[in-house]
């Protein structure tokens, strides 16, 4: 049997999950009380999984590096969450959500996992409403929806531009309820630094108490990783400052295969960078593309004038603007998927049409939406339709009610009023589709070790559609893992408590302590950030939105050099005995320096363009991504073989039973 058996159940696509659930081994409630589960991370996936596992009766130990589980970066998700409810009666269905997601992912996701995701999506909305999540509603009191990229229906539920916050606080409240009962033991300000494997099974973790610096051992019958994505390998991204790959990376080094590391989402609507001081990039929700029109000047001389400040965008006549997405993709227009929109923006800016000082920005314009909404309001309120000032005011009010907080955020950062002048946006690293390889049960290639949410790889293929990350995080945590984990834990009922004085715990703790000691006593000359910035620049320039063989090979060599210099010359001040944020950062950057190389290696072996992975050698004459289904319709799962040893590549063949492989077109 291949090590990469995804264990997808037999049968019709639409029946796999029900059949499988019906045959999963169950653990009786009395036995659940004797079983411990560790969960790493408290975002939508980790928070919801912790709560649900505890409700089921397991003893849960949950860890987060932040000061509270409520701070996990899911909180920053803005636009919404998809569900195939078909409340709008616009022809939505489980199949359509499934189809859109597989197509959006450029046919590089696992069909059966995606179908299950679509099947449980409706339950998520029911569950969240029952928890008191205040979704946006219409005047009739029913839930409102909007559209996201890559989709022709309105299936996105939202809470203004703060959907992630509201869903996370829902999961956090469910988690808090279980902490109160004692079923979840919560470890704030703790970072998982290794997973402990005993007889081939995940049996616990080594964690560092970030306040005292103490290294702790925690045992369990299963370990669930929900640490999110690794976009911070680029230094600048929309991720939180603390977002890291450490849990997934330690697991990789202990035998959990890492899948498709090169699939990264570069989000098209972020605030452009303004200078070297910048520590992170800020996203402007994709929901803005519902109403905003994206353009650059049609003539290069106008672009130059805008860049040097002699021309204002609002003064540029309609026929001198190029609404390039509407021009290139008439069917989907401004709502093409993220990878397509990002590449199109880069193409225009590379050609010299960028609109800010750096030449790396395009406009997102709401003037047309203001007018359109204003006219509707004028009609509703019987106001003279020639009164343009009044129409504009009414229109701005509607836009404000939909996107007010996003407009405010933009103004705070850029110091320009987007109601008066078009927003400037540019693509930025946002999400990583790749992650720890998992089977249908969400178990990694290490027994008893699970990975959920953004941390795993399975649902989004090579490109994630908007509003699907929240859906997947909660699907995994509320409705999938708590059931599938039973299949494994049913065999653990007579195992008994796992002791933490086993030699495997000794060895793991020693390794962790040794590494911390090395970092603290290195006495180099350069701060951690310097290495992180250098790594980020290599990643962005050579492993970013467009990649080629030469650049990738250079990146691999350069990352090796940066890594060597890091270990030779990094300086970490302070002590390992207390609160030390530089030490935390050093450990995370050390892992990024290893991941970066695997990332580039993965991009190098994939001689095709698909979704977020764009290889310049493989494109159509029109510049669209050119997939190679004959040779690359597989998941690339990498097995660690030792430091500075080339990892082994395992391939999980992707079979498409329910959807025919087709060239993706949004024209």
């Amino acid at each position, binding site marked *: 049997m291949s090590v990469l058996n995804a264990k997808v159940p037999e049968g019709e696509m639409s029946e796999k999950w029900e059949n499988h659930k019906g045959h999963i081994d169950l653990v009786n409630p009395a036995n659940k009380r004797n079983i411990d589960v560790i969960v790493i991370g408290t975002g939508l996936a980790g928070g919801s999984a912790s709560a649900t596992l505890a409700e089921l009766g397991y003893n849960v130990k949950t860890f987060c590096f932040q000061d509270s589980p409520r701070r996990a970066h899911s909180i920053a998700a803005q636009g919404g969450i998809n569900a195939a409810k078909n409340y709008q009666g616009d022809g939505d269905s489980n199949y359509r959500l499934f189809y859109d997601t597989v197509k959006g992912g450029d046919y590089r996701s696992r069909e059966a996992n995606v179908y299950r995701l679509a099947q449980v999506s409706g339950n998520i909305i029911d569950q969240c409403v029952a928890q008191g999540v205040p979704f946006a509603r219409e005047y009739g009191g029913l839930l409102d929806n909007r559209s996201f990229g890559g989709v022709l229906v309105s299936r996105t539920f939202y809470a203004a531009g703060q959907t992630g916050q509201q869903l996370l606080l829902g999961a956090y409240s469910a988690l808090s309820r279980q902490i109160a009962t004692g079923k979840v033991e919560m470890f704030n300000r703790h970072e998982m630094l290794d997973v402990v494997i005993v007889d081939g099974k995940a049996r616990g973790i080594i964690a560092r108490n970030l306040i005292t610096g103490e290294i702790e051992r925690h045992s369990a019958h299963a370990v669930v990783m929900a640490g999110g994505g690794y976009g911070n390998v680029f230094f600048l991204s929309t991720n939180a400052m603390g977002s890291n790959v450490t849990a997934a990376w330690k697991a990789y080094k202990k035998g959990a295969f890492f899948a498709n590391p090169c699939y990264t989402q570069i989000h098209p609507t972020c605030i452009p960078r303004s200078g070297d001081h910048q520590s992170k990039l800020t996203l402007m929700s994709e929901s803005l593309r519902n109403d905003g029109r994206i353009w650059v000047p049609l003539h290069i001389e106008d672009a130059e004038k805008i860049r040097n400040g002699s021309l204002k965008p609002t003064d540029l006549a309609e026929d001198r603007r190029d609404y390039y997405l509407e021009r290139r993709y008439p069917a989907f227009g401004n709502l093409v998927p993220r990878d397509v929109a990002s590449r199109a923006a880069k193409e225009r800016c590379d050609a010299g049409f960028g609109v800010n000082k750096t030449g790396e920005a395009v406009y997102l314009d709401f003037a047309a939406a203001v007018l359109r909404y204003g006219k509707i309001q004028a009609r509703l309120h019987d106001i003279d339709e020639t009164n343009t000032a009044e129409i504009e005011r009414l229109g701005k009010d509607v836009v404000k009610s939909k996107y007010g907080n996003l407009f405010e955020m933009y103004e705070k950062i850029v*110091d320009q009023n987007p109601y008066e002048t078009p927003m400037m946006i540019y693509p930025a690293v946002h999400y990583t589709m790749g992650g720890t390889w998992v089977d249908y049960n969400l178990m990694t290639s290490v027994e008893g070790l699970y990975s959920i949410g953004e941390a795993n790889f399975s649902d989004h293929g090579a490109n994630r559609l908007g509003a699907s990350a929240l859906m997947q995080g909660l699907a995994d945590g509320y409705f999938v893992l708590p059931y599938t984990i039973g299949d494994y834990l049913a065999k653990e009922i007579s195992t008994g408590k796992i002791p933490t004085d086993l030699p495997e715990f000794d060895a793991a703790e020693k390794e962790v302590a040794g590494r911390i000691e090395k970092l603290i006593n290195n006495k180099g000359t350069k701060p951690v950030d310097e290495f992180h910035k250098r790594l980020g620049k290599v990643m962005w320039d050579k492993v970013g939105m467009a990649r080629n063989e030469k650049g990738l090979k250079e990146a691999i060599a350069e990352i090796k050099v940066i890594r060597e210099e890091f270990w030779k010359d990094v300086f970490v*001040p302070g002590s390992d005995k207390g609160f030390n944020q530089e030490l935390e950062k050093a450990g995370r950057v050390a892992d990024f320096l290893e991941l970066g190389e695997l990332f580039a290696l993965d991009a190098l072996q994939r001689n095709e363009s698909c979704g977020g992975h764009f290889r310049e050698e493989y494109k159509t004459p029109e510049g669209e991504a050119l997939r190679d289904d004959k040779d690359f319709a597989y998941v690339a799962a990498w097995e660690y073989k030792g430091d500075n040893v080339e990892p082994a590549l395992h391939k999980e063949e992707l079979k498409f039973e329910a959807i025919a492989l087709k060239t993706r077109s949004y024209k």
Partner: protein
Amino acid sequence: MNLKLKVWRQLGANDKGQMVDYDVKDISPDSSFLEMIDVLNLELVVKGEEPIAFDHDCREGICGSCSMYINGQPHGPGDRVTTCQLHMRSFKDGETITIEPWRASAFPIIKDLVVDRGAFDRIIQAGGYVSVNTSGNTQDANAIPIPKHDADAAFDAATCIGCGACVAACKNASAMLFVSAKVSQLDLLPQGKVESDQRVLNMVAQMDKEGFGNCTNTGACEAECPKGISLENIARMNRLYSKSSISSK
């Protein structure tokens, strides 16, 4: 921009702290307040000194981690802004800026500008939820229509980011705005209303136990709240609390 900083430095919870002066130079007015601290910290590290510890994560004003008391105001000058979204263009070249941690006995200092806000978590654990399990069998999300006005009001209360600026702003270090935001959100929704009586009693009891002060309606919390959480929530909670205390079973 060149600035003079006076920053609270404290090694650990049981150590004595003090204000320390720093000069920072060549700061871009477009950088955020935390990016300005990043520049200073990088300089300190290069000099072999320990950087200033401070909580931060998302840097887009939503996670609620950042928590600096700047020139006598939580999150500094500017309306409805967190420290991470505060930009240096709000300050004058050459200005002296004083930076302290949140000061409240319920938020003990961990190091420098980092405080322990675990009390907020424990208040939520005392009742800030709807007691419904994850089953996949809850009724359809549209089964109970909710008036848009109520849903919007619940949402407004729910946008609290739990940063603690309300406590830091209050001369009594009261947590009433934080607690009432959660109590209101859930009371305004039919799903939460079921447990409203017990919830408000439990959460207020936990708030008192944590050592937060009483509310004297000065409104400093509302004025400083980066998310504009309204004082109305406190009024609603007071009404609910009185009603629940009398009718409590």
